[in-house]
């Protein structure tokens, strides 16, 4: 089984929001670090960030754990569409 960081973020985000069609995820890969850029509809921003950023923090924790398993580092950027 392989680690799919981009798909992981995409799946979680799409499951959380009201407009899954407007979820866009891009992965920018550097040597050891991946930057995952997550874009959601403006009204869904709160859904992926959560109260006091709790949802975003949880996604980052899960993402980091998966990345570590793959011997990488991953950074999640949440952007407004």
């Amino acid at each position, binding site marked *: *089984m*392989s*680690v*799919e960081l981009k*798909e*992981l973020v995409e*799946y*979680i985000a799409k*499951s*959380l929001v009201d407009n899954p069609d407007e979820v866009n995820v891009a992965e920018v890969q550097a040597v050891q670090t991946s930057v995952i850029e997550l874009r959601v509809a403006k009204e869904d*921003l*709160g859904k992926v*960030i*959560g109260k006091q*950023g*709790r*949802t*975003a*923090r*949880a*996604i980052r*924790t*899960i993402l980091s*754990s*998966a990345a*570590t*398993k*793959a011997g990488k580092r991953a950074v999640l950027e*949440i*952007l*407004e569409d």
Partner: protein
Amino acid sequence: MKEYDFEGRTREEALLKASEFLKMNISDMNYKVIELESSMFGLVKKVKVVVQVDDEHVLQALEEESREDEQPETPVMEPVENNVPGDVLLGERVNDVLGRIIELMGISAVRTIEETDQEVVVDIKSQEPDVLTGKDGRVLSSLQFIVNRIVNRRSDVRKHVLLDVDGFKERREAQLQEEARQMAMKAVESNRIFKMGPLNAKDRRIIHLALKDNADVSTKSEGNGAQRRLLIIPRGLQGRGGRGKNRGRKRERPRRQNGQATEPKNPASE
């Protein structure tokens, strides 16, 4: 004619139940006795009595009663079930969502799911449990939080989803309790206040409870949010735990000045 089954530890017990339920005298009943379980010494542990009822009046009365009984019997379950489209239980959804997330994390894992009317309890077994729990269980709480968010998002039925990886939570609790005891000892020996590392609220609670009955120390937490730390205070030093500033629990929110809202919002920068 209809047959009714009753169980008891003895024949008498089963027959009494039958008599009460059917509102018949035992002497009026036509029954047979079946021994369900017997121990090594031939002592019967469980007895089933099958009563044949052919009296029309008794049957009619029973039928009417069972119709009346149906509603109050399941007062909690019924509205819950009615709200679920097509009787979909949340457990299936939990299994799908969790399965997909774990798969995308690159892990294979077996899941056991138990569902009650209030909770969905999942135990995960994996070759790489650390990837799913993380240091201090942070990954596990994150997974639990996200899965809860996803499955309870639209449905009217809300159930708490509890995840565990091969008994991790229990082991973590035992480990924290042991750590608490050691820290308390050190604090007493050195007669100094001991500050624990960063812990989440649940873990702090475990430590507070572990030292609740320890007469040599008291515990309290200070600081806000991520900076909140648990202090273990030897008896002799109680009452000056907090070192002045910031002693109480969470500070109140910044006050509004003349009705103007304070605290600028910037949601994107977590």
